[in-house]
């Protein structure tokens, strides 16, 4: 049972890492384009709201953001340890709580759009 549980946790972490490695450069590039004033058509209000309002759009955004948050939280927990912080329980609670809050916020806003 312990092994089965662990494989789920590990699977989500690996999926989040794949999302972070493959998708995040494009996401950062989009923010860079916005910052330079070249807002892409798909990020104009009507288009992006339409995307976030569609069922596939909601599904995609929720999967990407929640997996990335979970992945980042898990890695941050290890990074704390690597930098010499030895309060793993406290650190784990804090980082997973932030990831959980982010996931709930994502679901809430997507529901509201």
């Amino acid at each position, binding site marked *: 049972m312990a092994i089965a549980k662990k494989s789920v946790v590990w699977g989500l972490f690996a999926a989040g890492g794949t999302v972070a490695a493959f998708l995040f450069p494009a996401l950062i590039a989009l923010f860079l384009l916005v910052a330079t004033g070249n807002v892409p058509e798909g990020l104009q209000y009507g288009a992006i709201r339409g995307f976030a309002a569609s069922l596939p759009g909601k599904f995609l955004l929720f999967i990407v953001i929640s997996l990335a948050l979970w992945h*980042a939280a898990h890695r941050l927990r290890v990074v704390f340890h690597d930098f010499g912080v030895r309060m793993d329980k406290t650190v784990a609670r804090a980082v997973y709580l932030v990831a959980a809050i982010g996931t709930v916020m994502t679901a809430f806003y997507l529901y509201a759009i």
Partner: protein
Amino acid sequence: MSRNPYVRPVSKTTWYMRNGRYRKYMLREVTCLLVGFYSFLAIFALAVLAGGSEEAWNAFLAAQQNGFWVSFHAAVLIYYLVYMTFDWFKLAPKAMPVQLGEQKLPDLVIVVAHYVAWVIVTLVVFWLAGVV
């Protein structure tokens, strides 16, 4: 085991400075902060969208249009590609070796497949966003 085994003193806070591989590991792992940052930036964008006001969305976009965010995103993009994405691809054949009968799929094939998939994924995102 002897009664007083020798424990080599290793600093808990600066151990990764001793070795280039350890340093590279740390440079990759701290990118989790960037993943978290951009996730919450995306959540903030969703919050603005959920507000349902086009002016608020345009103000959100306009607030980011300055030199600070241009240099921040540009620097992050380069750092992220080098230390997270490309490093992740390099590690992929070690993390997920593919066995074909008696033989292993060559590492290079797995790495190249990752780059190809990444280019396709990036193009799809750009196409969805209307960049290309």
